[in-house]
C-alpha cells in the first residue's frame, strides 16, 4: 500500500518544485559588508539597490518577471566572501552586484567565474581585478585606484610641468598603494623621483621628514594617505617656506582637511571621483533614500548605477544568458545616477571619472582638468 503511493508522491513533489522553479523571480545577488566595522560601506549600496529593485518591480519587473534581491553579508572578509559566492551560485542568481571590499571581491570572483555569473562591483577599486583580465565577467561602476594615480601623474607632468617629485605615504593599504602607483606613473612620464618615504600615522610630528623634503626641494610632493597626516605635513612644510606643490587622492578631499589645514592647505591639489550631486536623477535617488531614512553614503550611487546598467543589459539581451549580458554591458551606453556611462573592454567604468580639485579660498574647486592623451 505504502509503496504504491510512494513513487507518485515523489513525482508530484518533484514536479511541483519544478513548477515553482519556473515561476520563481529573477534573482540578483547583493553582496557586501552589512555588519561589522566596514558596514558603512556596504549598507548604502544595499539600500540603494533595494530602492531600485522596488521601483523596477512596480514598473513591471524585468523580462516579465519580478526581480528578487538575494542579500548576503560578507563582512568584508575574503573567507566569508567565498562562502557568500557559493551561496549565490546555489541560489542561481542571474548576476551579482558586489562585493564591496577589494579583498572580498578577489576571493569571490573565481567562484562566480566558474559558475558564469556576471559581477558588477560598486566599490572594489583594486586595479588588478580588471587589469589582469582574469575575470571577463567582472565589471565595476567605480574607477580603479590606478585611475587616480594616472590623473595625478598627467596633471603633474602636463599642468605643473614638474621635473622632480617626492612620494610620501602613510604605509596604509590605501595610501601606500596609491602613492606607489603615482610613483610608477610619474616614472613612466620621465619625472625624477627624489625619494619615497612612509610615515607612521598618528606620530607626534613630521618635522624631520619635512626638513628632508626641504633639502630635496622637489617640484611636487605626492602624498598618499588621509587628511590628518596630509595637514600636518603640509602645514609644517609651509611654515618652513617649502614651495613645492602638494597633491593627494580622495583621502584628503574632506571638509576637515580645509578646516584643520586653514590657509596652509591653499593650493593643495586632490583627485577624487567627480562630484555628481547636481544631476537631477541623482538628486531624486538621494531624496528618495532620505525619505526612507537612508542615504546613498559612500557607494550607494555606484551600486544604483550598476543596477541600472545590469537591468538595461538584460533587457537588451532579452535573456539572462551570462555571455549575452556581458556582450550588452560592453556594447551599451546607459544613463545612470552617475551620468552616462559605459564599460571599457576590461570592464572598467568610463564616463564617471576622476576630477582634479584644488583648494582655493577654503573650497575644493574642480579644475576641469582633462589629460591630454
Amino acid at each position, binding site marked *: 500500500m505504502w509503496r504504491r503511493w510512494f513513487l507518485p508522491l515523489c513525482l508530484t513533489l518533484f514536479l511541483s518544485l519544478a513548477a515553482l522553479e519556473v515561476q520563481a523571480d529573477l534573482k540578483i545577488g547583493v553582496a557586501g559588508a552589512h555588519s561589522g566595522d566596514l558596514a558603512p560601506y556596504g549598507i548604502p549600496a544595499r539600500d540603494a539597490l533595494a530602492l531600485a529593485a522596488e521601483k523596477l518591480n512596480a514598473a513591471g519587473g524585468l523580462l516579465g518577471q519580478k526581480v528578487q534581491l538575494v542579500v548576503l553579508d560578507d563582512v568584508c572578509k575574503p573567507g566569508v566572501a567565498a562562502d557568500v559566492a557559493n551561496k549565490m551560485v546555489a541560489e542561481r542568481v542571474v548576476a551579482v552586484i558586489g562585493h564591496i571590499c577589494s579583498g572580498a571581491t578577489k576571493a569571490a570572483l573565481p567562484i562566480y567565474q566558474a559558475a558564469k555569473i556576471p559581477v558588477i562591483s560598486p566599490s572594489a577599486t583594486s586595479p588588478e581585478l580588471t587589469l589582469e583580465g582574469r575575470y571577463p565577467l567582472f565589471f565595476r561602476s567605480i574607477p580603479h585606484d590606478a585611475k587616480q594615480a594616472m590623473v595625478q601623474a598627467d596633471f603633474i607632468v602636463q599642468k605643473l610641468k614638474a621635473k622632480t617629485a617626492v612620494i610620501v605615504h602613510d604605509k596604509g593599504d590605501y595610501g601606500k598603494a596609491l602613492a606607489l602607483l603615482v610613483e610608477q606613473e610619474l616614472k613612466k612620464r620621465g619625472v625624477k623621483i627624489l625619494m619615497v618615504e612612509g610615515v607612521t600615522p598618528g606620530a*607626534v*610630528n613630521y*618635522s*624631520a621628514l619635512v626638513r628632508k623634503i626641504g633639502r630635496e626641494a622637489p617640484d611636487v610632493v605626492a602624498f598618499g594617505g588621509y587628511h590628518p597626516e596630509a595637514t600636518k605635513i603640509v602645514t609644517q612644510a609651509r611654515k618652513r617656506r617649502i614651495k613645492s606643490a602638494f597633491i593627494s587622492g580622495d583621502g584628503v578631499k574632506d571638509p576637515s582637511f580645509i578646516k584643520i589645514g586653514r590657509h596652509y592647505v591653499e593650493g593643495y591639489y586632490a583627485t577624487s571621483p567627480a562630484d555628481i550631486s547636481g544631476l537631477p536623477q541623482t538628486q531624486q535617488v538621494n531624496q528618495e533614500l532620505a525619505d526612507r531614512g537612508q542615504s546613498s553614503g559612500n557607494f550607494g550611487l555606484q551600486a544604483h548605477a550598476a543596477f541600472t546598467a545590469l537591468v538595461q543589459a538584460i533587457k537588451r539581451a532579452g535573456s539572462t544568458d551570462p555571455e549575452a549580458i556581458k556582450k550588452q554591458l560592453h556594447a551599451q551606453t546607459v544613463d545612470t545616477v552617475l551620468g552616462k556611462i559605459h564599460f571599457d573592454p576590461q570592464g572598467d567604468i568610463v564616463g564617471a571619472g576622476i576630477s582634479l580639485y584644488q583648494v582655493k579660498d577654503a573650497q575644493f574647486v574642480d579644475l576641469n582638468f582633462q589629460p591630454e592623451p
Partner: protein
Amino acid sequence: MSEGFYYLSEIFFAGLTRGSIYALLALGYTMVYGILGLINFAHGEVYMIGAFVGLVFASLFSIMGYSHLALFAVALAAAVIWAGAYGFTIERIAYRPLRKAPRLAPLISAIGMSIFLREYVILAQTSDFVAFPALFEGLPDLGPLRDFIQPGELVITLVTLGVLGLLFVLIKFTKLGLAMRAIAQDREMAMLLGVDSDRVISYTFVLGSMLAAVGAILIAAHVGQINYHIGFIVGIKAFTAAVLGGIGSIPGAALGGLILGLTESFATGYISSDYEDVFAFAILVLILIFKPAGLLGKNRQEKV
C-alpha cells in the same frame, strides 16, 4: 657653515621637539612605576584629555578676543588642572581598590581605564579630527635662527626644560619629593615612619598627569589638530622611552625621551622615515641587551 651642518642641526632640533614630548609623558610612567610598580596604561589617554580640555578653553577664550599668549596660558592652566583631576580620579577608581591585588589586576584595570577614556571622548566630543587653535602663530620670527628651529619648537623645548627643572626641585628639595623617594625605596618602611603613602601616591598620579597635559598642549598648539586617538602612539613611545632610560628613574625618563626622539629624527633624516619605528625599537633592544635595567635604572632586587 656647510649645508651638511645646517641639515644636521635641523634634524637635531626636530628630534629635540619630539623628544621633549616623549620625556614629559615618560616622566608620568616612570614616577608611577617607581612608586607602585605599576604601568599606568591610561596615561596616554590623560594626555589626550588634556589636549581636549585645552581646546575647549582656548576656543572659549578666543571668542572673548584674548591674545595668543593669553590663550596659551589659559589652555595650559586648564589642561593641567583637569588632567591632574583625572589622574587623581583614575588612581582612586582604577588602582587604589586593587592595591593589595595580584600585580596583573591593576594592569588589566589600567587597560580598561584607557579604553573607557577613549570611548568617553568619542561619545562626549567627537571621533573626528578637530582643529586646535594655532597658539604659536603670534610668536615673533627668530631671525637668523629660523633656519634651524621654528618658534613653536623653541617654545616646546624651553617649556619642557623649565618643567623638568621644576620637577627636579620638587623631587629633591620638598617634603613631598622626599616622601615620594622614600616610598619608591621601601613603601612599608616609609609607612612605618609616618608617611601617608596613599596621599603621596595620589600626588604622584596628579603630578604625572599634569606633566602629560603640558606635553599635550605644547604639541597640539604646534601641529594644530587633535583627536581621541592621539594618546595611543605617543603613549607607547613614551613608555618605550621610560623603559629605555630605566623605568623608575626620573632623570632616566627625561634622557630616554630625548634619546628616542633624536633617534627617530635622525633615522628619518638620514635613512628613511619608513624605518623610524624600527630604529626607535632597535635602540631599545640594544640598550636593554647591555643595560637590562635601562640607561639610568637600578637593578631591583626581588623582594621576598
